[in-house]
């Protein structure tokens, strides 16, 4: 008997009269003590599956068919009251957004106590002891004191730990983790995953892990199910899945991951987007995006076949056939890389952006947040500089300050030989032609009340009307959108298409440098590959330079020529991508790289301890010394000077300074 078993579960949502088949015939089982990963892109029905298990569906949702068994008894036949004994006590859940899952007006102690009161019935003293014990268990320092704090006094990673403590309070048999680390930085993600693993080992609970991240699956899971458009298309053990993914969709997911080994070639991508689930399907749901689809795929929905190692719903495995034959591209499409040492296009010297902290009735300036603190770098023509760092380290602020969207406090930004800080509005306008920006959130970056044409015309004021028309059509073609897109409104496009529109808008003024502020972090892997390919091709065709702001190391490995690592407003290490990524010098860079979950599996790693300190009150001396495993006395007093390690490799760490015998790890 399995611990948790879903049998042909079908959950429908009703949206403006449309039926959305969010979960359409999903069956799987979770055994005691294992980690079962449900993998899929957004909009595939993963979260609806987990909410169905908890019977916490939104008002519009309804389980229309199938059943869910917990230890052999049906959850769907329980009355609501009986279900409340299951939630928390037998099945715990943690959500993606730790900031939204805790009640901001309750002390942490009271929130955990709530669970204990419902399920554990302890006396006052035992209750308090248990709360402290739980907080200690999830690795919160000073648990006695912290229990009295409110959620806002915790950082994002700490909040997620509190959430886990809450979910574990009644010692559930199954923990559902719905994208538990998606909202967190890689270093924190590594800590949380490590915590979940150790807790699982200690408590012997089963984890139903819901994620879109292949790396997380590889590190955590014992078995994997791939979900696509409301269905499970493949189930396999972790090892079988990562050794040889069977379904064409799974294979494409692997192929579209950016990474170091794929530099210089175009990423393999999946055509189109996940189909809307409000549609009727006939045949295989992946058929229209599949390279191997044949007539049968479009007519008959495939049944389960054994591919040797995994179960897969694909006609290519019927009757013991071997599955899709990879016509492996012998020569991957080469990307011409302008390797000439280009002219320096943008150079930034000692740029600082300080935000005043105002206090009191008269808004006296009480201090400064040094969001960007004396940053220098330069970008050559046709090159990509990746700016890497955790959230809150000032990457985005730096990007905005370069474009003069924020006034820098001091320092200089030199574009194409001209200083652009402190320019008046009019003279700045000229410089801005050459500098453009693409934002992270494709939903917030297009005005919903303007048509695509009007959006693109915005920057093209100076051109004649005839030119403009031709130019718009040219740009739309360039980013892969059809001509009639120009008369439509942003809400008619998907996230990836919107990002293309944003790119087309930036290109409209023929810029030479584009600041890309996490342009793919809101997108699914398959769509990310499309956008990265597009950016790479544009760079090759137009000789564009990119300042690529990101926290995604694999994107950096794939795309960047040079890398700058930023920590608390300062660049701690910079150099050519090969140097920095293969031989990271700064302990922070090492921790950052080690924290990236890899599809190659679990590796022992140097983890960054604790969380990012507040930029309003950075630690004295080297900002990293509190988290650094190599911390030395001088780290606490003096910020290290830059040390050259190679032709272009530069690091700011006392380990490499002249005054100490640097070991370089």
């Amino acid at each position, binding site marked *: 008997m399995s611990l948790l078993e879903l049998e042909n579960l079908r959950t429908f949502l009703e*949206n403006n009269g449309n039926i959305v088949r969010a979960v359409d015939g999903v069956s799987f089982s979770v055994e005691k003590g294992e980690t079962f990963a449900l993998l899929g892109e957004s909009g595939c029905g993963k979260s609806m599956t987990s909410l169905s298990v908890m019977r916490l569906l939104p008002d519009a949702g309804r389980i229309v068919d199938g059943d869910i068994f917990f230890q052999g008894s049906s959850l769907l*036949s329980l009355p609501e009251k009986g279900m409340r004994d299951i939630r928390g006590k037998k099945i715990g859940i943690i959500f993606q957004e730790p900031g939204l899952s805790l009640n901001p007006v309750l002390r942490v102690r009271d929130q955990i106590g709530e669970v204990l009161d419902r399920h554990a019935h302890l006396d006052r003293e035992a209750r308090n002891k248990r709360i402290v014990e739980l907080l200690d268990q999830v690795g919160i320092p000073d648990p006695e004191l912290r229990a009295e704090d409110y959620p806002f006094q915790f950082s994002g990673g700490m909040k997620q730990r509190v959430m886990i403590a809450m979910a574990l309070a009644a010692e559930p048999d199954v923990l559902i983790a719905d994208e538990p680390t998606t909202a967190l930085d890689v270093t924190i993600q590594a800590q949380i995953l490590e915590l979940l693993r150790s807790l699982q080992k200690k408590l012997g609970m089963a984890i139903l892990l819901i994620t879109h991240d292949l790396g997380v699956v590889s590190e955590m899971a014992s078995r994997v199910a791939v979900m696509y458009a409301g269905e499970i298309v493949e189930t396999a053990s972790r090892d079988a899945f990562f050794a040889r993914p069977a379904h064409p969709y799974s294979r494409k997911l692997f192929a579209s991951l950016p990474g170091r080994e794929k530099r210089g070639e175009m990423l393999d991508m999946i055509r189109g987007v996940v189909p809307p689930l409000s549609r009727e399907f006939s045949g295989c749901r992946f058929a229209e995006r599949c390279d191997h689809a044949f007539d049968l795929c479009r007519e008959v929905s495939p049944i389960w076949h054994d591919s040797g190692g995994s179960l897969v719903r694909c006609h290519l495995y019927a009757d013991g056939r071997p599955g899709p034959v990879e016509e492996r591209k012998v020569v991957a499409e080469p990307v011409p890389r302008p390797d000439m040492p280009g002219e320096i296009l943008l150079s930034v010297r000692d740029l600082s952006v300080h935000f005043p902290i105002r206090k009191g009735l008269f808004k006296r300036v009480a201090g400064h947040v040094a969001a960007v603190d004396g940053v220098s770098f330069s970008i050559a023509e046709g090159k990509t500089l990746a700016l890497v760092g955790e959230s809150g380290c000032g990457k985005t602020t730096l990007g905005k300050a370069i474009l003069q969207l924020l006034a820098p406090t001091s320092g200089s930004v030199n574009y194409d030989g001209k200083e652009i800080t402190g320019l008046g*509005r009019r003279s700045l306008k000229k410089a*801005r032609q050459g500098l453009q920006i693409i*934002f992270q959130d494709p939903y917030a970056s297009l005005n919903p009340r303007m048509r695509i044409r009007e959006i693109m015309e*915005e920057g093209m004021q100076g051109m004649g009307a005839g030119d403009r028309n031709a130019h718009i059509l040219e740009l739309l073609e360039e980013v892969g959108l059809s001509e009639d897109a120009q008369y439509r409104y942003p809400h008619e496009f998907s996230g990836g298409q919107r990002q293309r529109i944003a790119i087309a808008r930036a290109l409209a003024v023929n810029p030479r440098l584009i600041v890309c502020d996490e342009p793919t972090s809101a997108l699914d892997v398959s769509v990310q590959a499309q956008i990265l390919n597009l950016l790479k091709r544009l760079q090759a065709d137009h000789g564009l330079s990119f300042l690529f702001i990101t926290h995604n190391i694999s994107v950096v490995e794939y795309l960047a020529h040079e890398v700058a690592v930023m920590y608390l407003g300062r660049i701690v290490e910079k150099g050519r991508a090969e140097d920095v990524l293969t031989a990271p010098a700064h302990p922070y860079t090492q921790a950052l790289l080690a924290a990236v979950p890899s599809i190659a599996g679990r590796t022992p790693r140097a983890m960054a301890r604790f969380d990012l300190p507040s930029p309003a009150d950075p630690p004295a001396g080297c900002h990293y010394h509190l988290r650094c495993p190599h911390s030395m006395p001088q780290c606490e007093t003096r910020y290290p000077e830059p040390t050259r390690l190679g032709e272009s490799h530069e690091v700011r760490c006392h380990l490499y300074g002249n005054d100490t015998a640097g070991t370089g790890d």
Partner: protein
Amino acid sequence: MVVILWTDGLVFLLSGLILAFAVYASRRPHLSLPWRRVGQSRSGMISAVILICFVSIGLLDSFHFRPQIAIDKGKPIYSVEVLSAFDFLVETMRNHTERTYSSPFSAYAFSRETVASDGVQSRIYPRLRYGGADLADPGRERIPDILKRSLVAALEGIGVWALLAAILVFRHSGGKSFPDAASSIFRGETEIPWNAMLGTLLAIFLIAFPAFALSSHYHVFGTDKVGQDVFYLALKSIRTGLVIGTLTTLVMLPFAIFLGIMAGYLGGWLDDVIQYLYTMLNSIPAVLLIAASVLMMQVYIDAHPALFETMAERADLRLLFLCMILGMTSWTGLCRLLRGEALKLREMEYILAAQAFGVSRLRIVTRHILPNVMHIVLISVVMEFSSLVLAEAVLSYVGVGVDPSMISFGTMINSARLEMAREPMVWWPLAAAFVFMFAMVLSANLFADAVRDAFDPRTRVASRRIPPVKDEA
């Protein structure tokens, strides 16, 4: 001679603007989509039908002219009395003035009078000049007469309604047979709830046709102290209420939008100044401010009688001024909302992208911020309407509202209040004012709710509740 009063002009301007917007929006799906959603709301469309009836009366009442009374040496001489197209339509009602109070549908005056006939003085309830005047024996004939007239008028109403319904069905048949189209409309299968709207229209016709038919022979709502027909007064009040409700927003909007967006978008010391300004305005009682300004205006009007050709112009100027004062005191709420919204929008990435193109501030405000706050403006304007109509009633009651010669709900209530203490009570002027104002404000509120639901993304919820998961096994 056509007279265009200040408020008439502004009412026409506003109607023109609304029409132009309707044409503009119908071509743009993102603008017309929420209105289509309003169109699907049952309560919204029912109240819209009622509102349209009120608005048509108000508009008819806004075409003013001075009738010609004589020609003197080839030059026409015009009456000093300014009439409206609506007055012209209900002329009988307007001219049928009694000497004093009479109760609804009565043929006799409300109080005894000493009448001399054939040299004998007697104290009787005299017959009215117009109310049931053609009846020989009102005691016996009055009720059958009223019933007969209402029945005939109701039948007429049904006839007109059937004609309108037939036209509607015909226009919507679109390939289907007439009976099919009719049944789909009446069973509510159409996107817009036509059946509810037709039902409302029928109810209105069944009340309005008999009421108008009877009004030429009776006083449907009685008469007031000076013998004027109360039904006529209530109908005339509609225009005043509408003018106050709409023109005030016209005055208020520029302040609220301009200052709100400036404060939110530009920030800095400008934000501080604007915030202090509306916080200050908010902390002065509005009635005090209004009373002071209206009284000042009255002094000015009284001191310059030569400026006004007719009474109506004087009264109209005071009405306009009242709208302005109300507008000046009521922009703060919307301004605060818009400031917050602009503050939020300022950080939106599409605004940053526009800045990165070097787009000027003015263009950012007009092309990016303004269109994205218009839904808030619209919701608050529709919500504000009913509270302004009520505010007029209160202010006129207090005596700082419209000119006493102008007919409005407030002046009706004001003149009726003393009569409530009489024995037997004179209840009808107050009741008439109440019924009309209630119908107008309630339908405006319901309509505002429908508009808010359609425009506010947060209130949109699942169309219907889903039944529980599964029956207990």
